[in-house]
């Protein structure tokens, strides 16, 4: 039986009539018992309806308003059917917390091949859930301005601080099935592996928009954000806005959405290094960077992590090796080597290397005219070619306009057919290879088009190695 009290009865009826799902009703009744949320949705709904009916029977019939009678009738008719999409959680505590969803989250985690025995679940909800929730717990009460007396009596039961959070209820429901699905992995409160489940519901994003006119200072548009209506901003605005203003601008009960949230996006972040040092965060810096369509092969790229506020400042070489193994075992997409502690000076050396080091590339080049062995021999003979590069148009929007001198140390061409060859290059770091090949409107001089006296273009590019002897290699 549900752990509901007599005083909850009126609220349960009202919330059900306004379109809350069974589990949201439990949340609003401040039921803090996880097990209460783990029963089947339909069963819980049936129990709640029965509970609310009892309530009606106890009340003086003369006090019942016509509207309520109607909703009661409807609820009787709909008793056997499924409830619609919840006006508050937008389906998160309905079909989206079913066992099949736990399987999908588990699959997303399994795919990454983590070797861990715990994980922590983090849930991200659409910001409008806060707005919708407020609309439901607002005191002058339950969508029923005509019976303020009843409303005030109910406020006691609805201390908003005690309302169970959607996230919390979702975790209670999902963590059991998720852990079972993953076998030996436990869902914990703290773990280096963070599995974040992000829900979005574009249909109702506009719910928040009225807040911008009441609290313009909370919504600063920033270049990096997709929308100014972040959860933080919406929560802040909701704290500021007085109840009467809120009531004027926001529908009560909240509008019924036509569909629930889409299946969530699941992301996994494993914080081995952070966990080993007990750090609060990190800054990542690397020795240079590439375009999105360029792979870095070979021994990889030197990088450094600056750990913020670490709880430990030293780790034994064995422990470091351990951390490296954990990282390498955690995913097939990332590999690190020679992981070690370095000082500030070493990190700045890495940055200097960005300008001074040499880099080796491999490119696939197309030429308009057919090329012959003597063209290849000509390219292979070129040594320490000085190139004047104007800031490529491709990056001119974010870099200052300048002419930079760079050295192409050597090149080697490998003919594939008349119009294609593989070009190996060793160049000074900071040389823009794509522009060296196609010439960038003649802004890189000389370029391969000029050297071969034809129209040339670059089809593929990979970094073969970043030739900087940093960090020091470690014994295996």
């Amino acid at each position: 039986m549900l752990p509901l009290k007599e005083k909850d009865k009126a609220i349960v009826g009202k919330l059900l009539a306004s379109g809350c799902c069974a589990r949201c009703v439990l949340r609003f009744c401040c039921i803090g018992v996880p097990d209460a949320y783990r029963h089947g949705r339909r069963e819980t709904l049936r129990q709640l309806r029965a509970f609310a009916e009892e309530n009606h029977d106890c009340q003086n019939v003369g006090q019942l308003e016509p509207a309520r009678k109607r909703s009661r009738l409807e609820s009787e008719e709909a008793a056997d059917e499924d409830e619609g999409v919840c006006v508050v959680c937008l389906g998160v505590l309905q079909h989206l917390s079913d066992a099949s969803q736990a399987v999908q989250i588990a699959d997303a985690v399994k795919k990454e091949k983590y070797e861990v025995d715990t994980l922590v679940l983090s849930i991200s909800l659409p910001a409008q859930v806060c707005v919708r929730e407020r609309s439901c717990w607002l005191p002058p009460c339950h969508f029923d301005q005509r019976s303020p007396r009843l409303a005030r009596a109910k406020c006691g039961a609805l201390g908003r601080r005690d309302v169970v959070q959607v996230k919390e209820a979702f975790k209670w429901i999902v963590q059991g099935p998720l852990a079972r699905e993953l076998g030996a992995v436990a869902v914990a409160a703290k773990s280096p592996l963070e599995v974040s489940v992000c829900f979005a519901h574009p249909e109702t994003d506009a719910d928040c928009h009225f807040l911008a006119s009441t609290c313009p200072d909370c919504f600063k548009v920033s270049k990096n954000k997709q929308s100014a209506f972040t959860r933080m901003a919406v929560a802040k605005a909701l704290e500021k806005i007085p109840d009467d203003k809120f009531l004027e601008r926001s529908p009560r009960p909240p509008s019924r959405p036509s569909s629930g949230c889409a299946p969530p996006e699941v992301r996994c972040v494993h914080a081995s290094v952070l966990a080993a040092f007990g750090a609060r965060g990190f800054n990542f810096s690397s020795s240079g960077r590439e375009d999105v369509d360029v792979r870095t092969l070979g021994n990889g790229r030197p990088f450094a992590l600056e750990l913020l506020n670490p709880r430990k400042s030293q780790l034994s070489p064995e422990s470091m090796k351990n951390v490296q193994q954990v990282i390498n075992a955690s995913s097939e997409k990332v590999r690190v080597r020679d992981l070690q502690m370095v000082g500030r000076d070493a990190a700045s050396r890495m940055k200097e290397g960005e300008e001074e080091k040499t880099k080796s590339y491999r490119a696939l080049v197309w030429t308009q005219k057919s090329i012959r062995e003597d063209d290849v021999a000509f390219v292979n003979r070129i040594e320490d070619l000085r190139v004047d590069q104007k800031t490529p148009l491709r990056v001119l929007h974010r870099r200052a306009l300048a002419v930079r001198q760079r050295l192409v140390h050597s090149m080697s061409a490998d003919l594939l057919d008349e119009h294609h060859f593989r070009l190996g290059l060793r160049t000074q770091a900071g040389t823009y290879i794509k522009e060296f090949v196609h010439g960038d409107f003649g802004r890189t001089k000389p370029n391969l088009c000029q050297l071969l006296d034809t129209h040339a273009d670059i089809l593929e590019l990979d970094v073969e190695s970043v030739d900087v002897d940093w960090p020091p290699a470690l014994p295996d």
Partner: protein
Amino acid sequence: MDDDEEHKDGGAAAPSVIDRYYTRWYRADMKGKPCEDHCILQHSNRICVITLAETHPLLEKGRTISNIDYQISNGCSRLNNKVSGKSKRGGQFLTEFAPLCRITCTDETQFTIYSCIRGRLLEVNENILERPALLQEKPSTDGYIAVILPKFEESKSITENLLSRDDFEKLVAGRDAAQAMGVTQQS
């Protein structure tokens, strides 16, 4: 990966650098002068390169360029344009009909090339001063006229007054048909 079909035959069908990263926009009959068409290449990062359209009279066979002058008035030369820093401070601000340069041919005809869009002048092509022939040999790449950075908030609206490639090709086809008609009527 190795057998990129489009590039296999070395033919012209392969998408060029311009096809891959730029959108072509056109200004036909600039300032009411017939066929003085300009082509504006807009990079996905909003930077624009001003070039001559293939149909510009300067590219007609038999014309030779004798002089290119970026000094557009006594007080103003586009060659003096300097921009500094990431934010490109100090560049001359151009409006749609701001002249970029005047080009004179050996047959004494003179053409003015215009900005076509509002924005900050980043650079003009000095290579064509040394080799005017570049303008005719590679009008849409090495023979470009200038590079302009539109204002961030205007990067979409600047192209509203321009023709898309399709529209421009239709216009040129119509122009050719009209010319053919004219020729037959005269004869």
